[in-house]
């Protein structure tokens, strides 16, 4: 009975994919207070896991149905005039792929977080917040699933904003911590505000589309897109790019993502590496029919992505915070994806999205394991009364070193993730990055060159990171006493590592093995993969290997970095290195030229204009109304004769009006 | 039209004329001797002196109101009686209801002691 229900595409059950995380979050929200950490974590993980199962089921149903998109209306949202909005799920191969990534990686991260947050809440000194974390995490999964299962731009926008909210809540999870007690809160605020700029663009794009098509549903828009004025399509796609730049941290709106590392590490892995930040890529892929019609927008997207990929990679090589390196690496990889989908190489971009989700989540989680290992080491060192240096920042790579022997498992999975990211065959990153480079070579040789450089830098900074963290001698007591993390954290790591190794098999560059291409061509018209090109493959591998070699040359043999000592590159590269280190001064430029003037203006508006002009006018009006009111009350003198006079006067006035004026 | 209202017109003219003529005649031909009692307002022989807010026993008022009330109510019986034969039983029932309301009022006034002088 049950198996029958599940086997034949019973689309009435599709709502379950949204229902599970919602139920999980409500359960934890209401009952979490009385439950232990294990139960809360298990419920939240189970909710996400069940969603994953549901997504898998829907994938099989889709295959049975030949891959055709299915729409499942849930309920009417509202009707206002000609605008009728239904809440409808769109299940097609693209959305199922996204669901699988979100819930699959999400489940592993949930499980990992049970262990991670157990330590984290104690380290930060507020165990009560464990429950809140998982409520937010489930809320995020819920919102992200709304985003990817939307049947209209508006519903997608609801999810888009929902994940933005969760991102804000989770970046600021330890809102009272951070620099000067407001650092985390500021980081959260920054993420929110920068994203708002992007959302503004997206909203304008939606208004344009609604104005042109009278609806925001995908199907009618895509069907009629060719009939609409090209100018509107171009404007809408360009404005959409603004939204992409915000959510996927592209130039010039990328600045929020490095700061977002203030959130707990599972959050960085889930939201700011694997899922939410890829929403922009998803948006372009979903809107492919619109972008096809606007080559200029495609060009802009391509160059935007390529520039971001290179730009962020340069910054990543000069960072010392283990998570910051990964953050810039994420921005860089998102640049690869945006460049790919911008070129129209949708499959390559989405393929990279999937593989990246695996290895970047792996890297972040492993980094979290390293950080907690360091924290335990710190604690241990203090306990034994050894040289205790409380200035040690457990995230600073300069304090690490030699962790290979202390945290063996973490080292191995980290190495796998790093090699996958660097693009070493046959790990997952190799295949997906290779496909992007191949497409770039065919479409835009300039972009190819830029991306190849970025790939070199990627290998370099990953090599640097692995060498600094795991090799050489421990550079602090904490590193010397670090210990391996518990199984609840390492098991997800191993699973993700397996994924990072095997995910390349999703779209092997061999005729007949383009699984992902075949899967996605049901949702994206004209999805295709170029034939395998040995030249590109060997070339990119060589580039990656040379990057690793360069890293070894600088950081491997000599182990130069004490915490006080300068990076060997700083002497070699003078101001260029300084630019890398200071993130090309983008934050400073924004602060000086955008935030400063805005502040000054708003201060003027608030203190002078608003207080005196804007408030003055209503105040004046209000006072005069009040005076009039008091005068009116004076008329109410309590004497019946004056009241009767009023009635009589009114009557006479009306009669006079009727008899003399109307006639 | 005019003929129908002619008697009323004549009546009004006569009344007005009388009201004007009689005082005028008295004014012209009557002797004028002023004594204090004559310049007082006429109050049916009662002396209209004392404070204006002098208390009058509420019993006068009560009795008077009840008298007028029931008097006026009973007036309604007259037109009903004239057409009673034509209207028949329904009119009887309706008048019964009317009388019931009046009786309830009477019972209430009675029980409340409005009819007791002391």
């Amino acid at each position, binding site marked *: 009975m049950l198996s029958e229900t599940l086997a034949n595409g019973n689309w009435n059950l599709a709502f379950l994919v949204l229902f599970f995380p919602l139920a999980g979050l409500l359960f934890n929200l209401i009952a979490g207070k009385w439950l232990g950490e294990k139960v809360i974590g298990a419920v939240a993980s189970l909710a996400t896991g069940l969603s994953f199962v549901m997504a898998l089921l829907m994938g099989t149903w889709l295959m049975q149905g030949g891959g055709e998109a299915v729409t499942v209306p849930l309920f009417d949202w509202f009707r206002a005039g000609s605008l009728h909005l239904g809440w409808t799920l769109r299940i097609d191969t693209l959305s199922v792929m996204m669901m699988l990534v979100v819930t699959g990686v999400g489940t592993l991260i949930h499980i990992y977080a049970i262990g991670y947050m157990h330590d984290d809440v104690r380290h930060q000194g507020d165990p009560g917040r464990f429950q809140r974390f998982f409520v937010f995490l489930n809320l995020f999964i819920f919102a992200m699933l709304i985003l990817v299962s939307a049947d209209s731009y508006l519903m997608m926008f609801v999810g888009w904003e929902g994940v933005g909210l969760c991102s804000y809540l989770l970046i600021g999870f330890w809102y009272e911590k951070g620099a000067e007690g407001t650092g985390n809160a500021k980081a959260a605020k920054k993420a929110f505000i920068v994203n708002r700029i992007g959302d503004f663009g997206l909203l304008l794009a939606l208004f344009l589309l609604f104005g042109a098509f009278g609806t925001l549903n995908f199907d009618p828009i895509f069907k009629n897109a060719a009939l609409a004025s090209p100018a509107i399509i171009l404007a809408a796609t360009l404005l959409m790019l603004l939204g992409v730049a915000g959510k996927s941290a592209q130039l010039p709106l990328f600045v929020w993502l490095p700061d977002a590392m203030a959130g707990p590490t599972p959050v960085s892995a889930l939201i700011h590496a694997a899922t939410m930040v890829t929403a922009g890529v998803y948006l372009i892929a979903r809107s492919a029919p619109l972008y096809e019609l606007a080559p200029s927008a495609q060009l802009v997207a391509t160059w935007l992505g390529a520039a971001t990929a290179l730009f962020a990679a340069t910054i990543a090589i000069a960072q010392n915070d283990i998570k910051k390196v990964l953050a810039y690496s994420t921005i860089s990889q998102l640049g690869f994806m945006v460049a790919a989908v911008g070129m129209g190489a949708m499959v390559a971009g989405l393929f990279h999205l999937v593989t990246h989700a695996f290895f970047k989540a792996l890297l972040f989680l492993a980094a979290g394991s390293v950080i907690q290992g360091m924290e335990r080491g710190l604690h241990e060192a203090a306990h034994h009364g050894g040289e205790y240096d409380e200035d040690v920042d457990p995230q600073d790579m300069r304090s690490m070193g030699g962790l290979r022997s202390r945290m063996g498992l973490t080292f191995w999975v980290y190495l796998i993730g790093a090699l996958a990211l660097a693009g070493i065959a046959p790990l997952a990153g190799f295949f997906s990055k290779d496909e992007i480079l191949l497409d770039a070579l065919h479409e835009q040789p300039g972009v190819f060159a830029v991306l190849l450089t970025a790939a070199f830098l990627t290998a370099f900074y990953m090599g640097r990171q692995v060498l600094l963290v795991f090799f050489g001698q421990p550079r602090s007591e904490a590193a010397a006493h670090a210990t391996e993390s518990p199984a609840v954290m390492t098991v997800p790591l191993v699973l993700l590592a397996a994924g990072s190794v095997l995910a390349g098999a999703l779209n092997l560059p061999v005729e007949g093995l383009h699984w992902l291409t075949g899967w996605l061509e049901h949702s994206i018209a004209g999805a295709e993969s170029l034939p395998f090109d040995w030249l590109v493959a060997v070339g990119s591998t060589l580039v990656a290997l040379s990057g690793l070699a360069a890293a070894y040359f600088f950081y491997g043999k000599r182990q130069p970095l004490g915490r006080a000592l300068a990076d060997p590159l700083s002497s070699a590269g003078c101001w260029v290195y300084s630019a890398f280190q200071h993130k090309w001064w983008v934050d400073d430029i924004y602060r000086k030229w955008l935030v400063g003037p805005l502040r000054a203006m708003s201060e003027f508006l608030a203190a002078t204009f608003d207080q005196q002009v804007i408030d003055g006018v209503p105040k004046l009006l209000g006072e005069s109304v009040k005076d*009039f009111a008091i005068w009116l*009350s004076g008329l109410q003198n*309590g004497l*019946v004769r004056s009241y009767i006079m009023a*009635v009589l006067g009114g009557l006479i006035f009306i*009669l006079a009006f009727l008899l003399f004026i109307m006639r | 039209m005019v003929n129908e209202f002619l008697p009323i017109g004549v009546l009004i003219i006569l009344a007005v004329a009388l009201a004007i003529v009689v005082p005028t005649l008295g004014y012209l031909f009557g002797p004028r001797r002023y004594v204090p009692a004559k310049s007082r307002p006429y109050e049916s022989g009662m002396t209209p002196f004392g404070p204006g807010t002098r208390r009058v026993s509420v019993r006068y008022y009560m009795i008077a109101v009840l008298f007028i009330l029931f008097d006026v109510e009973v007036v309604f019986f007259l037109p009903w009686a004239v057409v009673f034969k034509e209207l028949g039983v329904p009119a009887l*029932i309706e008048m019964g209801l009317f009388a019931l309301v009046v009786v*309830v009022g009477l019972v209430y006034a009675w029980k409340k002691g409005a009819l007791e002088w002391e």
Partner: protein
Amino acid sequence: MTLDFTPILPFMIVAGAALALLVLDLFWPVRLKWLTPLLAAASLLAALVVELGQANYLRAGLSNMVIIDNFSVFANAIFICSGIAAIALAYDYIQRTGINHGEYYVLMLFSISGMLLMSTAADLIIVFLALELLSVPLYVLTGFARPRLDSEEAALKYFLLGAFSSGVLLYGIALLYGATSYTSLHGILSAVSRGTADMPLVVVGAAFLLVGVAFKGGVVPFHMWAPDVYQGAPTSVTGFMSVGAKAAGFVALLRIFVVAFPPVAVELTSVMNFLASLTMLIGNIAAIGQRNIKRMLAYSGIAQAGYMLMAFVPFGNKAIINDSVASMIFYLAVYAIASFGAWAVVVAVEQAEGRGLDIDDYAGLGRRYPLLGVAMLIFMLSFIGLPPTLGFWGKFYLFRSVIEGNYIVLALVGMLASLISAYYYLRVVVMMFLHDGANITVRRNWLLSGLVGVSALAVLLLGLMPGPLFQMAADALLRL
């Protein structure tokens, strides 16, 4: 001539119950006094059942002097529910103020029976009769707190002014009869359409009628009795009066004008337009200057009358009149619910000897009695017309019908007036939550709490789902 009382059966039930209770209350001993309000409520419930049973039962009766249609059913349901709410409002109040006489409920029943008759009146004689039947008990009720001077003063004022306005109304009826030789609404209409009527006289008569009934509704400049009377009357009476009497006035006005006077709409529309604007503005502005909450609510009631009057403005426009009627009667229901809630709060807060009635006395109440405070907030928001309360939908439909009638300026004036009103409505809330002060102990009484709770929930829940109630209002068609 047949005798069929079914069209006025609810009226008969209520009036009969009033008569019976008047006598019974005299005879039963003190320990049975609680039976009077109980039986009064029971009779109202019975009347409500009968009334609702008459839905979609369209007919005229009693020599075509009364008519029932869904409009009268809807209006009467409001009146009867107001009566029940008023009993809940009064039960504790008249006990603690020492005016617990059975006549209170009897007079109220009489007044309600007058309202029930009013909404079914198809003849001006019945209109007059109903108006007096509903007013005279109210005069008495106003003076019910007898030894209290302001109560007596208010009663006398109300009586004098009421008598004067009744005179005006009667004069209007007489003029109309003189002009058309009919007193029935359809008769007047047919005389006017046939052209046998003396038109200037019809217009003047209609204007007199308008003034006479507008007095009851508290329309500026015939409103001046309202603040004094509202303040002086026992608060439970004020609550009843502010809903019942006003509603009855508007219901009568609506039927008279929509049925009989479309031919003179050209002239009267501008008068109504003017009166509505004046009422909204003066009512709202004068309310700002009030310190006593009863007076403030009195002016607020005047302002609300102005909003309702807006719905009359297009009364001659056959195309949208059904919308107007629906929106106005919907607004009436909305106003009734929020009013009773607000008055229940006022009754609960009022202390012995008329203390606790200044707005300043509400300082800090919201913090000490959060539920009461939130309820008051909901009522005030509803009066302003903010979502998610029911008041928002009331205003929404009202303004929509006004704009459909193409009276843009009037709608703008209405919105401006609503804006002004936010000031004094919110002042109460601000006082309750943001100020410290007065050490008022609120009486806890399950009837009052129930009334506050039910009203607040109704305002909120119906505010989230206004559809069914508005559908009922939309079905409450006037039979033309």
